[in-house]
């Protein structure tokens, strides 16, 4: 084999897709097999799928010759690419004849070596292609010969070829001379549409979708693993490390059936012989903050944004997209970030291309990947807000560990309309009644919420004229969050409101915050992606909890 693949027993959950694709390719001889683009999120297993397919085609049948090529970043000049492409194709094609695995060792092999090999095996068609390649008038003509080689082999031998191309998106960097010329990849247009030579192209899905060649391909999605398969894969990975324990179902679901994520987590958790649920969540949090999983996405980020300033904006922008309840247009993004529209568009395009956000038509939204969301959150907290890793770890653990069953959460979005604060206050009153809390205390909190909403309205500087109210009740503790796109209105170190000295002498200035602090047990002001969030925490006394219990029992 030209590469390492997973043992068949460890390749879990893809049997049907693999067999289906294998059978389709085996019918290439009748010329009806279409070229496809294998789409899917990062880590979903597209590369492994190609490798497994190659293995099947190579060993299990002799009707269709497989050719696997992974585009390498270091081989993107037209000359280097065409030569390696041709050498590898010819070697793999010759290897297929007699299933000679030894021929996969083509590192350092020259076209002359391949020519001698072909002569030894009586494959004169190989020599013809090499001759044509060497006589090509220019690098582009030579590239055409290399790309047409599979088709030529079909004409000479009658055996169809399945071309499995990995990391195809890198070909947009193909260059003739110093600068990349994205038009060069259009030389694939003809070969891809040839009969009896179906292509399976994969790589970074979003980037391939931006290439014109995508229009010639049928798009086939490699879906996340089903829950049961994800569980089996996790068990298999843990058993291999002699680790006991089973990943909590909620965590398996959070990993979204992504084999890369499962592998990262199980490798981390597998270090411990016996894992409890908490150990698995802890391992996940570690992976998010400083593990291989974090390293993987951080590396994608750094590769996509090479300079520090654009990297910082990109991360903040990505974070904002993930925390926005609505998709963000470029105009909305431009209102919230510094930089010219062109600069921001380049950054947005980079985030889209790298798979951090969706939005092929300029309206940006998060990808449906909870792990990536967590990674971005952790990266933002760590790199932009400089939060210590330990604090972050604890914060994630608190947030992610399954909540107690008696936790109740209410979320409300208010427009910044006249007296909208009353709506928030009335809602709080009803929540208090529903949960059986002391009405005097709720009355105090209502006043505090009114003050907080007024602050949010007064200091709102963003485009989003909304207040996000959340009320979380757990046992006898109530946490109220009032968030808006406004600017900071307190000094973080002191928790006291900003304001010039003269302004502070005006009656009423600063009373709202003073009142909140008087009413709530704890008041926090948090800088968030959206803007500012005021958090009011109140613990009700035991007598009131009893009342709450009584209320619940009555239900």
């Amino acid at each position, binding site marked *: 084999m030209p590469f390492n693949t997973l043992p068949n027993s460890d390749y879990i959950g893809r049997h049907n897709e693999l067999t289906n694709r294998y059978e389709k390719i085996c019918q290439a001889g009748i010329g009806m097999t279409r070229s496809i683009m294998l789409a899917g999120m990062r880590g979903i297993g597209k590369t492994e799928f190609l490798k497994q397919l190659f293995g099947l085609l190579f060993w299990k049948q002799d009707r269709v010759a497989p050719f696997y090529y992974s585009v390498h970043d270091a081989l993107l000049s037209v000359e280097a690419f065409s030569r390696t492409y041709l050498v590898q194709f010819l070697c793999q094609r010759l290897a297929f004849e007699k299933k000679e695995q030894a021929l996969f060792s083509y590192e350092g092999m020259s076209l002359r070596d391949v020519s001698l090999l072909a002569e030894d095996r009586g494959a004169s068609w190989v020599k013809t292609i090499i001759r044509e390649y060497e006589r090509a008038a220019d690098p582009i003509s030579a590239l055409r010969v290399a790309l047409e080689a599979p088709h030529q082999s079909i004409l000479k031998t009658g055996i169809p070829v399945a071309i499995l191309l990995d990391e195809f998106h890198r070909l947009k960097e193909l260059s003739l001379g110093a600068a990349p010329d994205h038009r060069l990849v259009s030389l694939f247009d003809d070969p891809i549409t040839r009969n009896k030579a179906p292509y399976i192209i994969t790589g970074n899905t979003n980037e391939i979708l931006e290439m014109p060649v995508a229009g010639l391909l049928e798009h086939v999605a490699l879906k996340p693993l089903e829950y049961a398969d994800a569980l089996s894969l996790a068990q298999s990975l843990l058993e291999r490390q002699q680790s006991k324990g089973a990943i909590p179902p909620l965590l398996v679901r959070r990993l979204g059936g992504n084999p890369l994520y499962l592998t990262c987590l199980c490798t981390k958790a597998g270090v411990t012989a016996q894992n409890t649920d908490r150990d698995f969540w802890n391992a996940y949090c570690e992976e998010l903050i400083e593990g291989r999983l974090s390293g993987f996405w951080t590396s994608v980020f750094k590769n996509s944004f090479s300079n520090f300033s654009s990297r910082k904006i990109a991360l903040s922008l990505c974070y904002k997209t993930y925390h926005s309840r609505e998709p963000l247009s470029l105009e909305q993004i431009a209102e919230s970030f510094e930089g010219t529209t062109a600069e921001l568009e380049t950054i947005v395009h980079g985030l889209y291309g790298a798979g951090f956000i969706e939005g092929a038509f300029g309206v940006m939204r998060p990808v449906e990947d909870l792990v990536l969301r967590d990674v971005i959150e952790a990266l933002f907290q760590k790199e932009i807000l400089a939060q210590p890793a330990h604090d972050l770890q604890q914060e994630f653990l608190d947030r992610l560990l399954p909540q107690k069953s008696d936790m109740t959460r209410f979320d409300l979005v208010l427009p910044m309309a*006249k007296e909208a604060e009353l709506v928030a206050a009335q809602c709080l009153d009803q929540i208090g009644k529903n949960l059986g809390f002391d009405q005097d205390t709720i009355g105090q909190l209502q006043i505090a919420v009114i003050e907080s909403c007024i602050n949010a309205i007064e200091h709102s500087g963003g485009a989003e004229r909304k207040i996000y109210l959340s009320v979380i009740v757990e046992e006898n503790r109530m946490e109220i969050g009032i968030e808006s796109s406004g600017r900071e209105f307190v000094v973080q170190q002191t928790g006291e409101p900003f304001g010039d000295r003269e302004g502070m002498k005006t009656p*009423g200035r600063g*009373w709202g915050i003073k009142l909140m602090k008087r009413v709530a047990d704890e008041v926090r002001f948090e800088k968030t992606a959206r803007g500012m969030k005021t958090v009011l925490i109140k613990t009700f006394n035991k007598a009131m909890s009893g009342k709450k219990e009584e209320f619940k029992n009555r239900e």
Partner: protein
Amino acid sequence: MNNFSISSRSAQDVAVITPRGYINDMGAIRLEKTSEQFLGRGIRKLVVNFADVQFINTIGISIFTGIVQKTREYDSLLCFTNLKKIHCDIFDMVGLIKHVKVFSNEEEAITFLNGRG
């Protein structure tokens, strides 16, 4: 949206003002104007009945300080009645409570005021 209303009446030298609903800046200004009207007419004893006041915000309270100052300028007496505990706390927090007389209901306030010459 109309979350504030106000009514008032006067008998002899006592005026009773009854605000209702949400006292924010606009509500407090209306309250201030009403009290100024009574003071302008020579009425020197004012009662503000908070029984139907649902919420008071701090901007509204800041305007209350103006009302208190005005009554002091007119050498008048200002009484608050039917204050909810939270409202009483807020007035206390901002230091207003020491400048007014607080009664549990209107009748007590009027009895008190009638006893003052």
